[in-house]
């Protein structure tokens, strides 16, 4: 569960990225986070992953209180939250398979576990035939799938995707969204940050709209309005 209570985040004196955000996303939910550029969406993600601390207010994520989390607990919080970055952050020197195996290694998974799980995840995102390719040999949509596979492989309870369809044509975007919905159907909480009005309205999910650091709309009607 993700819960924000009156969260204020100021980067320096004068820039108030968030000015009192309250919201709650239940386990297993699918929500869009929408808002214009500079409205504070990435700031919300960074607060969820413990990259930033709130200036005031409370942030609760999967049982951790982020406003007073200890430094050495942050890795364990992060294992519950898979992040798909807008710029993918894939490792170009590693193959598709190794990119996924690598993040399992990073949290201490064993060789056998990795051998069993990586092919399963690659199949889930539709990359099973590309496992020996390098990221530069993939299309934009395929890179996005790889980023999703990587966020997914350690079985986090929550996945956050920052502009997952940013550079894709409408058909690919739809495919990615369908994949995220499929993953959500398997029980993973999904928070998708996006600009794309059409896409949001096609999926009729919960939409949290944010503007100038405040939640301006939060509803299940699936409409994107700010």
């Amino acid at each position, binding site marked *: 569960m993700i819960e924000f209570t009156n969260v204020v985040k100021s980067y320096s004196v004068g820039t108030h990225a968030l000015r009192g955000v309250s919201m709650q996303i239940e386990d297993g939910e699918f929500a869009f986070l929408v808002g214009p550029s500079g409205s504070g969406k990435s700031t919300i993600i960074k607060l969820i992953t413990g990259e930033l601390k709130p200036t005031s207010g409370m942030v609760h994520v999967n049982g951790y209180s982020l406003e007073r989390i200890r430094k050495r607990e942050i890795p*364990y919080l992060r294992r519950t939250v898979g992040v798909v970055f807008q710029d993918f952050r894939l490792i170009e020197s590693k193959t598709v398979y190794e990119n996924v195996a690598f993040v399992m*290694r990073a*949290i*201490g998974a064993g060789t056998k576990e990795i051998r069993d799980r990586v092919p399963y995840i690659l199949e889930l995102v539709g990359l099973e035939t590309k496992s020996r390719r390098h990221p530069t040999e993939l299309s934009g949509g395929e890179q996005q799938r790889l980023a999703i596979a990587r966020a997914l492989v350690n079985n986090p309870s929550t996945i956050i995707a920052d502009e997952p369809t940013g550079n894709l044509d409408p058909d690919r975007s739809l495919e990615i969204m369908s994949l995220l919905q499929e993953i959500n159907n398997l029980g993973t909480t999904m928070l998708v940050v996006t600009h794309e009005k059409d896409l949001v309205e096609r999926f009729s999910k919960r939409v949290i709209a944010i503007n100038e650091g405040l939640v301006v709309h939060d509803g299940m009607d699936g409409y994107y309005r700010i």
Partner: protein
Amino acid sequence: MKINNLGYLMKEGIRGIFLHGFMSFAAVCVTVACLLIVGTFSSLMYNLNIIVEDLNKTNEIVVYVDETLSDAEARSIGTQLNRIENVHNCVFVSREEALENFVADYAERGTFNGVDASYLRHRFVVTLEDNHLMEDTTAAIRSVSGVADISAAYELAEGFSALQDILRLASIVIIVVLLVVSLLIISNTVKLAMYDRRDEIAVMKMVGATNSFIRLPFVVEGFVLGMLGAGLAFLLEWLMYDALSSRIAAIDTLKLFNFVPFREMVWPMVATFAAAGIFVGIVGSWTSIRKFMDV
């Protein structure tokens, strides 16, 4: 931590060494050079200490007793001498014994043949605990009543003590400087390895790798570099030392320098090199990582 993780960490660490083959090679070379110099100074110090100890043993003060005293009075001075601080040992040598020694020492030339013992004085042969204090101690001995004269080789003793002091200071300075140099080199090599893998590190942090897990391959890398340098330096030192000491022994027919065979100091040397290698490797990588980990 699971065994196969340990294997993974080792493999990653060693992969890092080959990823920066040239830098690693340079780091090992510099470490070898530094440790060779460190080792040479340590072995020199080790030998010098033994020489000085030997010298201290032979560096005696001869205390002549006033010839007007009776034999018994002369002997009794010994207890007073023993009471003086810094006097390690004091042996009475009667004038007859002294003569016998002279006669024996100069038997070939016959210089002392037919000399009467009464020309000589009773004497004490005194050895000191610390030769640095020789001047004070001789003054104290002079003030004992019944002591007629003293013959002491201040200059030689002081010269050696001073040499030892200078060498000790010089080796400490050199050892510290060179250890720091190797440390910096290894630290930079590891830093380069980390810089190359900063993307991987960022991803590892984002998916919840613990700091120690991220660090360990780099510590392994530094450790292996340090140990490699130490091992090579040790072998080279051994060869060099044996070659040098046998060469000097061949020239030095007077046996002024008696080099301890390397075999006799193998274990202290192994310990020194291993400690230096581990220190340089682990501290070098750890410090470079610290700067990288604060994300």
